[in-house]
């Protein structure tokens, strides 16, 4: 469950990125967030893992008020989320396997079991057996799939992705979209932002549309 209740975000410079945004996403929904550049999509998504904090209103994730979460508790919130944000870069000095392993290392997962999970996650995104390669040796689409594998390796109940297909050819973009759809079919709540109106069109997802920080559709 993701609940935004009258959420506003004003950045330190004084710019209001979000103004009075309210909506609810139930378990297992597939939601596409769209809007023009600068509409506030990234800002909205960053409020969920408490990368940014709202200046007004409340954000609830599975009943927990993350807008007022103490700093110490934030890591534990993030461990239960699958995140693919602009900040979620791959580490170029680590292999694909090590990149996907990172969330499990952070949670102190037993290494043997962790290795199996990493292999399964890579298999899931169609990169089985490519673990030893380095991220910079992969295509853009493959890199995004590594990032997806890293986001789901902890088996999160919520997956959040900020323009995961931004720099990809349409064919690659559809592959990525199909992956998100399949996670959603397996019961994961998926919230994806995109510029591309055609993406997910076949899946008839619920759409949230932002314009200049206001929710104009989908609430």
């Amino acid at each position, binding site marked *: 469950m993701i609940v935004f209740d009258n959420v506003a975000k004003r950045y330190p410079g004084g710019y209001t990125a979000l103004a009075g945004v309210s909506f609810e996403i139930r378990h297992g929904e597939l939601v596409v967030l769209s809007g023009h550049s600068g509409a506030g999509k990234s800002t909205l998504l960053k409020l969920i*893992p408490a990368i940014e904090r709202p200046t007004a209103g409340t954000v609830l994730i599975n009943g927990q008020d993350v807008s007022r979460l103490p700093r110490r508790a934030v890591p534990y919130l*993030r461990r239960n989320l699958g995140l693919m944000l602009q*900040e979620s870069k791959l580490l*170029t000095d680590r292999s694909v396997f090590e990149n996907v392993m*990172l969330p499990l*290392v*952070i949670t102190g997962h037993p290494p043997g079991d962790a290795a199996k999970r990493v292999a399964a996650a890579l298999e899931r995104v169609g990169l089985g057996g490519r673990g030893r390669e380095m991220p910079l040796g992969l295509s853009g689409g493959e890199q995004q799939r590594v990032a997806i594998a890293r986001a789901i390796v902890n088996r999160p109940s919520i997956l959040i992705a900020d323009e995961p297909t931004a720099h990809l050819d349409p064919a690659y973009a559809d592959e990525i979209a199909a992956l998100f759809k399949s996670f959603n079919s397996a019961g994961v709540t998926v919230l994806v932002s995109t510029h591309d109106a055609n993406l997910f069109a076949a899946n008839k997802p619920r759409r949230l549309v932002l314009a200049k920080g206001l929710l104009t559709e989908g609430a």
Partner: protein
Amino acid sequence: MSNWLYLHARAIADAFRRLAGQPLGTLLSAMVVGIALSLPAGGYLLLDNVATLARGVSGTPEISLFLANDAGAADVAAVERRLKGNPELSSFRFVSRDDALHQLERSGLGDVLGGLTANPLPDAFIVAPHSEDPAVFERLATEMRGWPKVAHVQLDSAWVKRLHALLGLGRSAVLMLAGLLGFALVIVTFNTIRLQILTQRAEIEVSRLLGATDPFIRRPFYWFGILQGALGGLVALGTVWLGVRALAGPVTALAETYGAVFALAGPGLPEAAAILAFAALLGWLGAAVSVRRHLAGD
């Protein structure tokens, strides 16, 4: 608990990887730390050797207890009982007036004494305390002066005082040196860790996003500091060891010209462990300050 151990093992492995990833930087830092530390370590060792040498040349410091001329066997026994009962004494021996006279005669002064009808020498005890602290000597002497039939107490402590003053001075100098260089090493580590944090910005940010706690992020840097310090400690030990080896021959030869038997002692296991621990502690301290300064909650 096992999770805690696992996380530390990961952090140590991580720190090793980062050290090995830049061998030249690691080597240079270890040399700086090691050479700086070898100065106070060598100084400490030198003082230790001087103390041993002084003890060897001058013998164990003692207190001489001369009894009154009219002291009888019962009085001697009473003083002996008191000496036996004192836990601060490591040993004592009795020199009877007759023994003393014989010694004097043997030393060639017999002719001088020949004219005397009675033995003018008193019975005496030669006492060695455990401690070499001049204050303890003074206190014991004062106490013994108050005992019955003790006529005179002679403190053999002038040289002990001088030696202690000198060694004390030397220790202060070594301590000051260790303090100053230690501070410099903390600064060196502080800076190394600062650079480490800068080059690992991306990894730190991604880890935070994936739910890493502050301790998780900081741990590898602490271990990096500890390992770098310990490596420096090893270099310091090596330097000192080489120094001892180079000086051992000449020092023994020098001692022989004075008729003394003396071998320069290198750092023992406890000293080596102490140097390593001190170096590791400094590394940890530099890392801790740097992490606090450069990784404060963002």
